[in-house]
């Protein structure tokens, strides 16, 4: 039976495309279903919200995609994000209180330092994994604890507040504000409009989309079109072959974990802009596990060698649409976990049934 099914799918290009992108088909399917069941689900504003609130999860999944393709796992991304967030927050807070620099310079300094700091956990776990052959699970679990501890130490267990208002204006801002009669205004509300009038305006293309688009475009380019990406797949497919082909596998793995950590750091900086405070990652957030789930739903294999960046993004959006759609349709939020669990199992089953498709 399995053989027959495989053969049928092998024969037909359309079926093959559907089987390969089943997560995307599910995404469309759920959007259609929720459009009927949830009032207000099918609207540009709601879709913008779903994506805007998924930016961090998408970054996490992108980071995890690179690591999982090499056959590893990075459990530290969630707390690296927290570390980066409180680091940026603390620096911005101190500089803002001192008041010597312009707000732009303050935000830039805080962001850059936080991004540089976020490279360090990846460097350490990368060295542990590549040089000392520590299993990725353990090395990044170590970093999971360490980065969490350091983040809590920096912020003393409280979110870093009293930051400039410009943060959220950028982080939650839109490219286009439109109101019938008063025309289009770019990047900010027209002057003299009070904040409580904001609802009268149609807000399009959150600024976060631009960041998201650029980051995903670059990462996808790296993974699909460069030697770096090719070697990432090769290491996941057959590490021995990669070594014998003259690829410096140790160096490459260190770079991979640094990249993953850096992307998590970007998520942390973005988090400061989105919320206006430096947040430590709470213990129950489980960003790393949802990221792994999204990547696997996107068709990657934890054994390595397989995975696509855009498919991982689809994995995140699938989880986000489920969450949003169930909520709007009035279903109790607990079902979200059940739905994600079922999707995960489905992903593995599909992968087992059609190993040659991906």
């Amino acid at each position, binding site marked *: 039976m399995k053989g027959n099914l495989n053969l049928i799918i092998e024969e037909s290009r359309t079926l093959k495309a559907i089987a390969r992108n089943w997560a995307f088909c599910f995404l469309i399917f759920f959007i259609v279903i929720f459009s009927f069941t949830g009032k207000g689900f099918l609207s540009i504003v709601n879709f913008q919200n779903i994506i805007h609130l998924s930016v961090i999860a998408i970054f996490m999944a992108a980071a995890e995609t690179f690591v999982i393709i090499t056959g590893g796992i990075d459990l530290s991304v969630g707390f690296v994000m927290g570390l980066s967030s409180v680091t940026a927050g603390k620096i911005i807070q101190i500089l803002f209180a001192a008041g010597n620099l312009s707000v732009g310079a303050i935000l830039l300094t805080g962001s850059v330092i936080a991004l540089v700091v976020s490279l360090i956990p990846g460097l350490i776990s990368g060295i542990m994994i590549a040089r000392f052959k520590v299993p990725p699970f353990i090395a990044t679990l170590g970093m999971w604890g360490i980065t969490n501890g350091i983040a809590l130490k920096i912020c003393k267990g409280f979110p870093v507040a009293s930051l400039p208002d410009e943060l959220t204006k950028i982080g939650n801002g839109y490219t286009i504000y439109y109101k019938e009669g008063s025309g289009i205004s770019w990047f900010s509300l027209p002057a003299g409009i009070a904040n409580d009038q904001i609802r009268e305006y149609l807000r399009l293309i959150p600024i976060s989309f631009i960041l998201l688009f650029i980051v995903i475009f670059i990462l996808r380019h790296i993974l699909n079109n*460069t030697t770096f990406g090719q070697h990432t797949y090769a290491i996941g497919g057959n590490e021995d072959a*990669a070594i014998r082909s003259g690829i410096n596998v140790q160096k490459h793995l260190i770079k991979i974990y640094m990249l993953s950590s850096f992307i998590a750091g970007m998520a942390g900086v973005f988090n400061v802009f989105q919320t206006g405070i430096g947040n430590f990652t709470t213990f129950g957030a489980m960003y790393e596990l949802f990221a792994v789930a999204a990547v696997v739903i996107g068709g990657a294999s934890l054994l390595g060698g397989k995975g696509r960046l855009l498919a991982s993004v689809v994995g995140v959006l699938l989880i986000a649409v489920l969450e949003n759609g169930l909520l709007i349709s009035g279903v109790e939020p607990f079902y979200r976990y059940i739905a994600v669990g079922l999707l995960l199992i489905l992903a593995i089953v599909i992968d087992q049934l059609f190993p040659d498709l991906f």
Partner: protein
Amino acid sequence: MSYLIETRNITKRFGGLVAVNNVSFGVNPGEVVALLGDNGAGKSTLIKMISGVYPNDGGDILYNGEVVKIHTPMDALANGIETIYQDLALAENLNVYSNIFLGREKTKKRLGLFPVLDHGYMYDESVGILKKLDIKIPSLRNNVRTLSGGQRQAVAISRSIYWNAKVLIMDEPTAALGVAQQKQVLDLVNSLKGHGIAIILISHQMHDVFEVADRICVMRRGELVGNLVKKETTTEEIVSLIVGSETVQ
């Protein structure tokens, strides 16, 4: 006589154990030399010294009549000595031409700035090398996972030849293959001869050895106990050399 690759009195010790003892042998261009011997006879160790996996403790390796230092696999590759291991060292999740270019990918500049993989070039070059060696593979864009054992062997071999292998070391190339695929691989070995490649073949299958080898070297307990021209020997003689009831110099 000028061999393309030659060892002179080469020796390898592991602690007190002499794995390879004073072995001298050589291969001419376009010649297939089969290396036979029981398990533990020292065949693999000898091969690994030539391919740079183990540095030799004594003796010399000569390439084209000149002494060369081969201490790492990279040294061997630089001298055109390529090894096809039993597990083939292919990334099964990548397609055929990506495997041929693995680790040595061809890139081009996009917008004059960013280096990107030049898929077109790699594809065309791979088609060329497969055609030259008369290898038929359905599509070079298919993952290696979808190929048969013989086709994978052919991919591994054509990768070596594309990267200018002059000496090809093959470790049990037919061991895991079906009958038809064994024949494909042996045909390929025969056609490589025509391209002037020196081939060292390790095999347990007497039938393969007699089909493609020009000369047969037999090792026993780290020593070379026989170096025979195929046409002048018989299976019985070879077997008795392997098990140790006879020595021919």
